């Protein structure tokens, strides 16, 4: 017992720098050795996802993303921005960007370019529009002005082009069409939209905030003034998962890009949100954050996939296929990219369900977060035991 007491007393006087070191290791090790884990999605995140997704493929709907933060809170907000932009690009959703902070403007450019690398068909002014930096002195006229006419409130985009002449503006006039604003901030800046846009124009508002600010924002969520809320890295990890399970999901044979069917209808690939799908055990294959190289098909799915590929690729795919427990598996790491046409290569890579690092940053981070939390809980328990033992000892003396 005496030995135990001395350990706890020693813990009380432990130099804080050792604790820093342990916390740093608790974060570094899970980052270097990633493992698959699940992030249970919560209704505030699901609501944002569903609202964004309801605009899929529509000419007369758009989302506005407002970056009201600088680089200091990027680790929490940037992954959620990437996830939402990816969702919009995957599901053919028009998206606008602006920042009322000078230091927010380059973050918009960085986020767009990071996602755009994977979507070469996405065009500025057509699929998205970046208004760039708008001085904070103009917040009120801009927020209210957009309720009347977006092109009048923000006459030019970040590239100096007339807003009204941009193809993206076809079918978009004001908040009736751009009916969702998502504010990203490390403060209560979302209140601007809540005060000026929601009561007057009925605009739907959602926020992506740092975890510190979440407690301040919950009252507005609970009263239904925010349609949803992304809370720090956890919210970002949840959104990343939803994008992987629904928006980026492709069945074998399905095109990767939106297309017009034989009846002239616009078809946007991906699938709609469903709670039932989230409960299915099969989604574990879609949300793995470790590197995946194998595309798995049932024999029927493989036939559909083959039909969708150019004829010259089909013999190569037949050679590469392996049959394991009745399923057909193709390992992309054993294929030569140059021998396959780009469409086959891209589709095959999509069907491996391998997510690129930039689209799973938050989930990898949440692994480290979990380990760090466990370490801190242990420290708190040990510290408290030490404190009470020391107190009891002092009282006894």
């Amino acid at each position, binding site marked *: 017992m005496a030995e135990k007491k001395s350990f706890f007393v020693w813990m009380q006087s432990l130099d804080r720098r050792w604790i820093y070191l342990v916390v740093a290791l608790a974060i570094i090790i899970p980052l270097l050795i990633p493992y698959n884990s699940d992030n249970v999605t919560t209704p505030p995140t699901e609501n944002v996802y569903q609202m964004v997704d309801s605009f899929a493929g529509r000419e007369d709907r758009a989302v506005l993303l407002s970056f009201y933060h600088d680089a200091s809170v990027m680790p929490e907000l940037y992954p959620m921005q990437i996830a939402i932009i990816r969702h919009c690009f995957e599901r053919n959703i028009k998206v606008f960007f602006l920042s009322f902070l000078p230091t927010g403007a380059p973050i918009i450019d960085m986020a767009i370019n990071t996602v755009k690398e994977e979507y070469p068909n996405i065009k500025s002014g057509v699929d998205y529009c970046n208004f760039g930096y708008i001085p904070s002195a103009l917040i009120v006229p801009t927020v209210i002005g957009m309720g009347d006419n977006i092109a009048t409130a923000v006459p030019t985009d970040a590239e100096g082009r007339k807003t009204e002449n941009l193809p993206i503006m076809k079918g978009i006039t004001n908040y009736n069409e751009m009916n969702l604003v998502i504010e990203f901030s490390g403060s209560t800046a979302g209140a601007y939209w809540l005060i000026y846009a929601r009561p007057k124009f009925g605009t739907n508002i959602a926020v992506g905030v740092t*975890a510190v600010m979440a407690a301040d924002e919950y009252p507005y969520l609970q009263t239904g003034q925010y349609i949803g809320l992304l809370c720090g*890295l956890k919210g970002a990890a949840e959104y990343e998962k939803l994008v992987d399970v629904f928006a980026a999901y492709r069945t074998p044979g399905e095109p990767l890009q939106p297309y017009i069917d034989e009846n002239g209808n616009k078809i946007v690939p991906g699938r709609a949100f469903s709670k039932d799908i989230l409960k299915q055990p099969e989604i574990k294959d879609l949300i793995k954050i470790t590197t995946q190289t194998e595309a798995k098909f049932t024999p029927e799915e493989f036939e559909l996939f083959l039909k969708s590929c150019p004829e010259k690729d089909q013999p190569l795919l037949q050679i590469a296929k392996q049959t394991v427990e009745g399923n057909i598996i193709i390992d992309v790491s054993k294929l030569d990219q140059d021998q396959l046409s780009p469409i086959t290569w891209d589709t095959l890579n999509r069907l491996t369900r391998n997510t690129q690092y930039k689209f799973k940053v938050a989930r990898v981070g949440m692994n480290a977060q979990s380990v760090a*939390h466990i370490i801190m809980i242990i420290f708190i328990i040990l510290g408290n035991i030490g404190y009470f033992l020391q107190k009891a000892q002092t009282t006894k003396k």
Partner: protein
Amino acid sequence: MSFELFSNLVGAFFTLCIFSFLYKDNPFYQMSEQLLVGISLGYSLVLTYERVFIPYFYQPIFLKHEWILIIPSIIGLFYLFRFSSKLSWLSRYPIAFSMMSVGASVALAMHTSILVQMRQAMVPIENINLALIFIGTITVLLYFFFSKAHTGVYGQFVNIGKWFMMVGFGASFGLTVMARISLLIGRIQFLVNDVFLALKQAFFG
């Protein structure tokens, strides 16, 4: 060495300089802190010149000859008189104008922060969450009612409000810890992926 890797190395150097404060204060930390302040200010100044001064002052007045804008520009310049002890009273005029936006927001802010909150607190108590919100709202409001001493049955009742607040503070603190760890994760992801693994890739393939 690519430009991206070089810029990442510069970022890594300054990240480690800032982290060195965890050991103890040192000249590297101070240098990085002062550089950050200076660069942020310089960047904002240039961007404000390009995105505010040119499109909202120079172009309308000197190129489009919208002379009426000279009046608000002069009022705006009054801000600079803050530095003069004799004429600092002039700076109150632009401040007075900017206060208009505060006035404009009062009615709408009342709607958002008071009326809607009150309306949502007055819904039928149909489930346990709403019951907790009801009890929490009443007891916390009574806790801040200082005209009556917190003694006896009343004191025990308002103590429930104190517990509700403690739970709220605990949630806030937990979220704060999560936020700070997230920031650290972000920096370590940068050091591990964008610097360490990139260096390994560049030199060892």
